[in-house]
């Protein structure tokens, strides 16, 4: 996984390789993983938000009901 194992060898090469992160060449896989996380996050949060809004809407609180919940820690 390590792209660099010896800095002296790396920096004294005829042409210094720029990319030094682990797993150079696996960028495509990393992007796919990130895309899955990104889409999954939207799906999860959309579902939970819809559920939360539906439940709260059913309770039909008035505009001032929240005032009874103001804390005085």
């Amino acid at each position, binding site marked *: 996984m390590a792209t660099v194992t010896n800095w002296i060898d790396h920096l004294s090469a005829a042409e*210094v*390789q*720029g*990319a*030094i*992160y682990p797993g*150079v060449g696996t*960028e*495509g896989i990393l*992007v796919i993983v*990130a*895309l899955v996380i*990104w889409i999954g996050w*939207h799906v999860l*949060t*959309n579902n939970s*938000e*819809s559920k*939360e*809004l*539906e439940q*709260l*809407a*059913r*309770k*039909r*609180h*008035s*505009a001032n*009901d*929240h005032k*009874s*919940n*103001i*804390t*005085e*820690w």
Partner: protein
Amino acid sequence: MTDQLGALTTIFTEFYYWITVVLMFLIHVGFCMYEVGASRYKHHQHTLMKNTMLIPLVTVTWFFFGWWIYWAFPTGPGLAPSIMNGSAALITDDSLFSAKWYVPTSDLMAVNLGDHISGVFWAAFLLFSWTAASIVSGAVIERITTFAFGICAIAIGSVFWSIDAAWGWHFDGWMLKLLGYHDAYASGVIHAIAGGFALGILIVLGPRIGKFSSSGEPRNIGPRNPWLVTIGLFLIYTGFWGFYAACNIPIFDLGPEYGMEGVTYFTATNIYVTPTTLGGITMNFLMSLSGGLLAGYVIAKGDPFWTYSSGLAGIICASAGNDLYHPIQAMIIAMIGVVIAYKLHYWVERTFKIDDAVGAVAVHGYAGVAGLIICGFVLNGYPSSGYSVGSMWVGTDYAPINPLGMFIGAVIMFGVLGLIPGWIIAKILHGMGKLRIPREVEIAGLDYNLLEAARNDEKAVSSSTR
């Protein structure tokens, strides 16, 4: 980097942009505080999280495709050939400034010893993206769903502003060549487009419950916490210093860049690689802030909310030409912009029943548009680029700055890339039933469950004996 002067220039430039990113972070802190201060108690926490979550949403998409768009789209595509490769197609070839290097799988989109600049430049532009999305966020508080806002934030932050930056901010942009477009500190490319986008959403989203009386008269809602609004706006002012600096290139030798044989001329430049000075733009920044505050204080009769916002609107209005204006010109232009923005805000509110909760459309959109149009007159005849300047509509050459080109540019920024996409996306989200929170939730407050849970915790803790 093997010679000392080259290394010093590169690392100075890298550090310069890095500092601008840190400073610009304060813009977002300011917007968060401002929005929370402007929203009502029962919506505070959701309002805060909505604006906070645009950070990861826009950042990740900026990595995926936003940055690529900026480098690919300067030609339109199809509107004007690139000065780099002579083609009007998307710039995806092997040239130095091609989008090819900025796909998410590129090894330049990471720690790379061969490229010290792309990462900080990517970040500086990303912070502009957050600003664009955050401008929209304030206008729609207390009734948009977090999901819908996330989609809108990605659209304005990683797609539409990136297209407009490619068109009107890139040194190879078609709007410079065909229109003589000039927008040094983003009156249009950030502010007008974000204001227009917000207006497009607001048309579909509708006003907050209670904003208008049954006879259609607008009512004032808040701000609930004027002190948080004040600190928020001061932080936005502070972050704007970073914004201005990030729109410059700190050190550049224009002699070889413009092909002038034997000439060496080191200077700071604006985003178009034409010369300016950090000192001059600092004077203009402060004088336009002052003009905005002076005009806002008078027209809003000392109202703090509008006076602070007017300081911002003043800077925004003068920003298009603040690389070249005289400081007194900047001040007067700022004053004009503030009057226009304030008057238009209330006219649009009354006439079209638009509920812009924080005045974002006015401060950013109307002031930005006014700034572009004024810039066309005041800087009429200046070159829009240093590379080659010809007459208007001549393709590869660059048209000089002119009133008609700047007016068309303003329409493109506010209308074509702002209002219309915002309206279409909002319509789609509305059609899916995802745009607006249920009426009952808006009345109860988005934070109702959070407040109730906190109250129950408090009761449990206070009744505990061990």
